[in-house]
């Protein structure tokens, strides 16, 4: 019937986020291979574009996929600013876009569209969950610290919402200019203010450095450090002892011990000789969502409404646990509280069940 399905992978293949891009692609390919390399009977042809995590080049890069390669679907990306530009282009061209990581609230907020989906999370979500956890633990005064950029602001806002709803109070928001990693001054501020808890939003090299500096300053003994899972995901090896015992919230964890997760992990490990992480799961689920939509329209992507409808109605059987998508196309999912033990983010319990992003600003 139809020809190959062209899937555009617009992910970071160079720069800081390269590892994430690779994990997402691997996860995506894993599920496609599980389905025999075909979605709704159509073979897949991949087109890769390195987005360099540079929003300034995002429109050009996404246009390569849309206009040059005429892809049917775009998967991407990690960086929020880039994802925003992609969402804009996807909205204008009508190409299906599945965001496998970037958490910018706006993607499923004001920028939401019938053809834009997210298989990961919104920045608001894990942060809100952490806020609730912190409040439940009886913390009263918290400080937040993050890079000064949109993702950080959104995460901090989510934490504040959850924490203050539970009766806590955020006494001060600290920020470091992006991507500066010199934290001593702010650690000193934290030590001087003596809050009950600190919420931090960092990722990658910054997360490693922050957690290590926090421990080196001796603060981890007295003031618990909370954060969304990115603070300790994929970085534990580098963080070493400094991260031990830290609590984070995320929609994925080590030691879920569900059949679904175990089979995913084994398959991933065998195929790529690597341990999967949350990014791999998000990539994997992007493929699942695409498959569901494709099956519903029998491979005919021009039926936009049915495609979206199928995904909206579906329960996606993710390694993270089943989830659905909200009206604004963001996952409605459980958030786990996890604790760092050794080199794993061990599941403690479910922090918030079926948490849905408010999708503020979305008119779907």
């Amino acid at each position: 019937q139809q020809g190959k399905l062209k899937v555009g992978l617009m992910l970071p293949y160079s720069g800081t986020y390269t590892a994430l891009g690779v994990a997402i692609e691997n996860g995506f390919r894993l599920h496609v291979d599980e389905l025999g390399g075909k979605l709704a009977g159509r073979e897949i042809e991949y087109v890769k574009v390195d987005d360099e995590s540079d929003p300034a080049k995002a429109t050009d890069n996404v246009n390569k996929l849309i206009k040059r390669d005429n892809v049917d679907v775009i998967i991407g990306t990690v960086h929020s600013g880039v994802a925003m530009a992609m969402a804009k282009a996807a909205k204008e061209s009508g190409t299906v876009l599945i965001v496998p990581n970037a958490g910018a609230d706006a993607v499923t907020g004001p920028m939401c569209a019938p053809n834009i989906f997210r298989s990961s999370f919104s920045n608001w979500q894990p942060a809100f969950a952490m806020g609730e956890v912190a409040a439940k633990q009886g913390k009263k005064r918290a400080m937040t610290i993050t890079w000064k950029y949109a993702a950080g602001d959104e995460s901090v806002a989510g934490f504040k919402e959850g924490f203050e709803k539970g009766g806590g109070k955020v006494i001060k928001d600290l920020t470091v200019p992006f991507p500066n990693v010199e934290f001593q001054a702010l650690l000193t501020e934290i030590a001087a203010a003596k809050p009950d808890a600190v919420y931090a939003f960092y990722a990658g090299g910054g997360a490693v450095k922050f957690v290590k500096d926090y421990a080196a300053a001796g603060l981890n003994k007295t003031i618990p450090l909370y954060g969304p899972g990115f603070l300790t995901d994929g970085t534990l090896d580098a963080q070493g002892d400094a991260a031990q015992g830290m609590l984070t919230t995320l929609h994925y964890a080590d030691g879920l011990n569900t059949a679904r997760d175990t089979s995913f992990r084994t398959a991933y490990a065998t195929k790529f000789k690597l341990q999967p992480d949350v990014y791999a799961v998000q990539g994997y689920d992007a493929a699942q969502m695409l498959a569901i939509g494709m099956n519903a329209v029998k491979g005919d992507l021009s039926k936009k409404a049915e495609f979206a409808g199928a995904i909206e109605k579906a329960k996606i059987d993710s390694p993270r646990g089943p989830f659905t998508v909200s009206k604004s196309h963001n996952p409605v999912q459980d958030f786990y509280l996890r604790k760092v033990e050794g080199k794993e983010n061990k599941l403690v319990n479910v922090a918030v069940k079926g948490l849905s992003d408010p999708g503020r600003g979305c008119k779907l």
Partner: protein
Amino acid sequence: MKNLLSNSLPLACALILALLGPMMSPYVSDFIVKVMILSIFALSLELLVGMTGLVSLGHAAFYGIGAYATVLGSGKEGGSISTLLPLAMGCAAAYALVVGALSLRTRGVYFIMVTLAFAQMAFFVFHDTKVGGGSDGVYMYIRPVLGSIDLDNRYAQFYAVLAALVFTYGLLALIRRSRFGAALAGIRVNEQRMRAAGFPVYGYKLAAFVIAGALAGLAGFLVASRDGVVNPELLAWHNSGEVLLMIILGGLGHLRGAVIGAVAFTLLKEFLSTQAFVGPLADHWQLTLGIAIIAFVALLPKGIIGIASRFSPRGAT
């Protein structure tokens, strides 16, 4: 004869582009639009670097400001080109006036760094505060329009950008051959002597700086109208650096060099990162692009434009 040929060559290129415009696939025309915008941007920097000897590492600031002005000025209802274009160029020129007035006190590497500093300040204003939507940027609801020219239309976009490029090139070509341009060249070579001869050097440099800023603002206007989104990265230093690389690659001191550099740099990168052309090597485009650039520097001391003189019989000195 030779002169005539060299003068009409750019015009011929523009004509060919104009004729081919309607025949191009959306991607090709989009790509050409991108290269043309970059060419305008590069030309505006060429006025500073190649013609006046002022190496700026903050030129992206004017580009970004032009782009932001366009988006912020257009509001929810969209705006007219006739107001947004002057707004974009005006904002960029105004910032260039401030930056130029202050930074022209310094010279050489210090000038490079002061311009960088001012660009970074502008960058952080957009990145760290809410004026422009923060680090993720803002988008434009409706693209600028003027009468029947709607920049949402890809042909309108193509011809508008082409016209802007021709305008920029023509303007700079005029400046180059004029007394103003000769004075700038003199300043590049020997500022002290220019002052002794009676040229108000500071004024000349400032004028060049502001014109370059306004033209970069023009490029910014075009890029915002094309993309419909802007973000702080437009102002980032590596963007300034990249356009500088383009004009060096093309060959300093020639308008054509700036355009050739923009074309070559973009094409090269496009080529090396496209699987269809280089296969799995595309994953390592950084490596191949890096090697290509190193090879260019090693083999072409005068930039790509130098190839011509290299193969002409008596060019080498």
